[in-house]
């Protein structure tokens, strides 16, 4: 049973990676990476029970926090870059 859920999560992570590769804008890629991280947390929680090793839950807890901070940092970086480019009158090409 855990195995089926783990397979569903792995397939979803593959789909998210595909969207991250073909995503037209950088925000699509950030969205996919955020989704990938959330699925990693769920996968770790399921794998902890699949192999009967509850230690993995600590990793899942740490990963949930790191993923959130990482996404916010990347978004802040792109936002400040977009703001700078707006001052130089080129708002269009950075989003692509």
């Amino acid at each position, binding site marked *: *049973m*855990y195995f*089926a*859920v783990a397979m*569903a*999560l792995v*397939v*979803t*992570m593959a*789909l*998210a990676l*595909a*969207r991250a590769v073909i995503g037209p*804008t950088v*925000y*699509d890629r*950030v*969205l*996919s990476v*955020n*989704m990938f991280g*959330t*699925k990693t*947390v*769920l996968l770790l*929680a*399921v794998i902890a*029970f699949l192999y009967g090793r*509850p230690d993995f*839950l*600590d990793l*899942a*807890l740490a990963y*949930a*926090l790191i*993923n*959130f901070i990482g*996404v*916010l940092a990347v*978004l802040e970086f*792109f*936002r400040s870059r*977009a*703001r700078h480019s707006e001052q130089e009158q080129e*708002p*269009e090409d*950075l*989003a692509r």
Partner: protein
Amino acid sequence: MKLALDILSWVLLTAGGAFVLVGGIGALRMPNLYTRMHAASVTDTMGAVLVIAGVMIQAGLSLVTLKLAAILMFLLITSPTASYALANAALLAGIKPSAGSAADLEDAS
């Protein structure tokens, strides 16, 4: 009693896996950024809650359940915040939300 709890947790886990899979397919197939964000939030809320609730029932009352509850709490606080920050950044960068039109659908395929 044990069997009933097992069946309940299997139902929750299966439903969670189905929601996660549907959200993943949606994130790949939807036409533009904001609809993709909508599909991805299904996996962040419904999928995560169902999967972790199913695992929690298997764990019973223990420290493991407490850890799972902490993970669930962090996910439920952080993923809407991340989605908000993402939508805000995309909007500021000039990506317009548009109703799904035939042109959008042709773009996607």
